[in-house]
């Protein structure tokens, strides 16, 4: 049987080399390539998802932070109204939320969902074929 050998094989190694090089290689497990490519594809998707989540979340967070900084007292008053109404069993509480704030919360929620999906989509070690 003709066996390949490293170009710098020394005479002292020849005997061991003949022994070990004669050990036939084992065949790859079924689905080996597909499992890797699935992970690679999911990683590519995950990278894209993180970017979308960041694009959605960052402006919303910035806007909400700005709102809290400039209208913090209104938020506190609205929250107080709700708490008072709840503790007095009053069926009505007055507070005002503008549309942009609602939109910012909605986008933040959407971004959180996408980020949660991206973080759970990263396969853990050893689970690629199982």
């Amino acid at each position, binding site marked *: 049987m003709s066996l390949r050998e490293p170009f710098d094989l020394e005479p002292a190694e020849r005997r061991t080399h003949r022994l070990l090089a004669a050990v036939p290689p084992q065949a790859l497990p079924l689905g080996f390539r597909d499992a*890797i490519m699935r992970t690679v594809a999911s990683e590519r998707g995950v990278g894209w998802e993180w970017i979308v989540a960041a694009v959605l979340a960052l402006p919303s967070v910035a806007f909400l932070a700005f709102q809290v900084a400039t209208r913090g007292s209104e938020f506190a008053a609205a929250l107080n109204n709700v708490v008072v109404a709840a503790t007095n069993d009053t069926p009505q509480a007055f507070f005002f939320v503008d549309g942009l704030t609602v939109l910012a919360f909605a986008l933040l929620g959407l971004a959180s969902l996408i980020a949660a999906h991206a973080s759970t989509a990263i396969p853990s070690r050893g689970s690629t074929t199982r």
Partner: protein
Amino acid sequence: MTRSDQDVVASCLAGDADSFSVLVERYGGRVYNIALRITGERDAANDCAQEAFIRAYRALHQYDPTLPLGPWLFRIATNASLNYVQRWHAHESPVEELPESPEEPEEGPEATAVRREELEEVVAAMAELPPAYRAALTLRHMQQLSYQEVADALGIPLGTVKTHLHRARAALRTRLVPRTKGRS
């Protein structure tokens, strides 16, 4: 026409992740067999080989295209396998059986059986060696890497590789002598 490894890596880096399957096809067998000889377990080898490819994919931008890709991949696979062995001591359960050789020489069935038995003894004796020795022997004699490539793959100096290999061969011989005596 066969694309070079460097072309495939460039495609992957340009966003064509599907090209990576070419590298998995090309090096999957060798990476898996390196992991198998170091871990001694099929499932562990499968996990380590897959992990090696995924790590390689994530680190493709760090690969230097002026160097051959094989030793770079083997280094990642060796590290993943040695980490596994350190974590789980998987070397205690060696792989026992060998596949049917695709190129059986023109010898009779009896000689083939004896040959097969010999090879199983070599694999079993190798599985008893320390993981670092198994890794060095695998890369040098089963994957035919040069001393320098083995040093690169293991991340140790050339002199240390030669020392490891010398000791590994001696340890392998020591384990094989009683086995061959027992057979005769």
